[in-house]
């Protein structure tokens, strides 16, 4: 019995020993840990960058991608997922990697142009064809009888932008803390479902037919608008004021040092700022940070939106996070039972 058992075991080990180094030889691999809706965008970026890198250096490079909820992805990196680069939905998640995991310096956001955000998006409304409830601006979302779909800011990075956009509009409109809080309370009273992520909320609105308006990232809204089975069923409403959603990117210093991939990781992220990278961002409905590098025809799909930035309106992510989304913050107060 024992020799019979040993032979396949030994050959398996031998095969592993032979395969292991062979598979790794000469190949450089980068791991990009990203959030959900960037899947299709990075699939194209990775191919384009690998081709360019091969032309420039002769090195074969493979980018592996990991997608998931932005906060979950950040936690995975903190807990040891060896990301070379992270491309997440909000700076707070990369801040968490810097403070909780000590994997990159606290000033990571100043290392790349435009706050390390090579592309941006903004928050818009998606309404049903013909806009039956006549939704024009944020005020309409707090009207009784209007169903509002947004994911839970506690579980979704994207939803935090939605919430902050509403807050930014309200604080400009009312200029009074109590009234702002009251507006957001009324708005969230109109939310029948708090999905855990942005794609879930889009499904609830578009497929299940729940609610009258979806608060969404512009790139997700444009995707829903132009996608096969939802084409022609919805329209986009641009509010009078919105927020500039800046999904940032960073290389993870500790991990690239361990893998010896610092040079490739940085080149990969800088590629996002190249004309090719910017064009791909626009193609996948993200607003390019440097639109002058992109043909005007690719920019025509983006309507003009008055935007505030998180630094102007909230003093940056660290403050916004602590004041609004931490346990006992403003969002929790909005949801206290009366």
């Amino acid at each position, binding site marked *: *019995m024992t020799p019979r058992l040993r032979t396949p075991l030994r050959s398996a080990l031998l095969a592993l020993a032979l395969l292991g180094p062979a598979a790794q030889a000469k190949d450089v691999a980068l791991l990009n840990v990203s959030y959900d809706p960037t899947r299709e965008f990075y699939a194209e970026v990775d191919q384009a960058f690998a081709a360019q890198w091969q032309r420039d250096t002769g090195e074969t490079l493979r980018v592996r991608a990991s997608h998931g909820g932005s*906060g*979950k992805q950040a*936690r995975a990196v903190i807990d040891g997922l060896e990301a070379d680069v992270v491309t997440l939905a909000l700076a707070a998640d990369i801040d*968490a990697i810097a403070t*909780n995991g000590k994997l990159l310096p606290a000033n990571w956001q100043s290392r790349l142009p435009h706050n390390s955000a090579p592309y941006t998006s903004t928050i818009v409304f998606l309404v049903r064809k013909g806009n039956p409830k006549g939704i024009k601006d944020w005020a309409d979302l707090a009207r009784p009888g209007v169903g509002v779909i947004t994911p*839970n800011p*506690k*579980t979704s990075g994207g939803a935090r932008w939605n919430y902050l956009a509403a807050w930014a509009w309200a604080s400009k409109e009312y200029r009074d803390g109590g009234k702002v809080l009251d507006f957001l309370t009324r708005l969230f009273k109109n*939310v*029948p*479902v*708090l*999905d*855990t992520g942005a794609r*879930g909320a889009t*499904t609830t609105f578009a*497929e*299940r*037919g*729940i609610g009258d308006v979806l608060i969404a990232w512009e790139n997700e809204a444009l995707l829903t608008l132009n996608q096969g089975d939802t084409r022609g069923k919805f329209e986009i409403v641009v509010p009078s004021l919105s927020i500039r959603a800046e999904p940032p990117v960073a290389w993870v210093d500790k991990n690239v040092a361990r893998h010896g991939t610092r040079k490739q990781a940085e080149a990969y992220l800088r590629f996002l700022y190249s004309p090719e990278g910017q064009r791909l961002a626009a193609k996948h409905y993200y607003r390019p940070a440097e639109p002058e590098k992109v043909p005007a025809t690719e920019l025509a799909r983006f309507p003009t939106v008055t935007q505030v930035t998180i630094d102007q309106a909230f003093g940056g992510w660290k403050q916004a996070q602590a004041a609004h*989304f*931490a*346990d006992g913050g403003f969002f*929790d107060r909005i*949801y206290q*039972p009366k």
Partner: protein
Amino acid sequence: MTTAALPSLIPFRTRRPLPGFSLSLGLGMAWLGVVVLLPLLALAWRAAGLGMDGWLRAIHDPRVQAALKLSFGAALAASLLALVAGAIVAWVLVRYRFPGRRLLDALVDLPFALPTAVAGIALTAIYSSNGWVGRFVEPLGLKIAYTWLGIVIALVFIGLPFAVRTVQPVLEALGHEQEEAAASLGASRFTTLRRVILPELLPALLTGFSLAFARALGEYGSVIFIAGNKPFATEIAPLLITIRLEEYDYNGAIAIAALLLAASFVCLLAINAIPSLFAHERREQGRG
């Protein structure tokens, strides 16, 4: 023939298909230790680090209380429903022969195999206001998706196989004879059910119930799609764990997780205690 076969039969019977007892036990314990015990120990260790004070503070939060109430209540309701439905399904599968029985038998395990998120999305599609069922019951004022009712339905779905699969083998072993004997002594169908069948099934029913309950308590994937996830209304405890983690509040998450773990553990301990409670009957049945 028997005398000739006997000498070779004994060594054959004592030779086990797996290597020696100590090696098997060692490997088994090692697996159990690394795969099950170690992560749970780490959780218990972290929970102990909170101290009784910190733990109580985290649990006393009104939102946590609401979520726990909902989770325990829905799990209880769902495992009771799953138990009744499961016992009937098991009865039909064991006692009747009909075309498609094998298919039905295989279908029972589907909730085990299906990614729970898929189940959640499918259930939501059926019960939401424009779904197959939702569009008919919602005009009658019965909302299922995004209410606690939807949560219970999702939990029945994932709990059902536990009830069926624990009751089924006992029913198979039971046989008709005792029922026939009871009937021949003049017992009514209800008396036969109450005095003959149910006592035999009770340990299996309790086991099925506890397994379904423990599973329902921790279920996440299928529930979050149909629950609506509104704080104080339809937010389940496992989701609140995720929310605490999303806030990088590891302690808050661990406090809730430890409570759910303890509850599940009590359930499983109860399961293990059940056979010894009924050991007498078991022994008689085994020897018979």
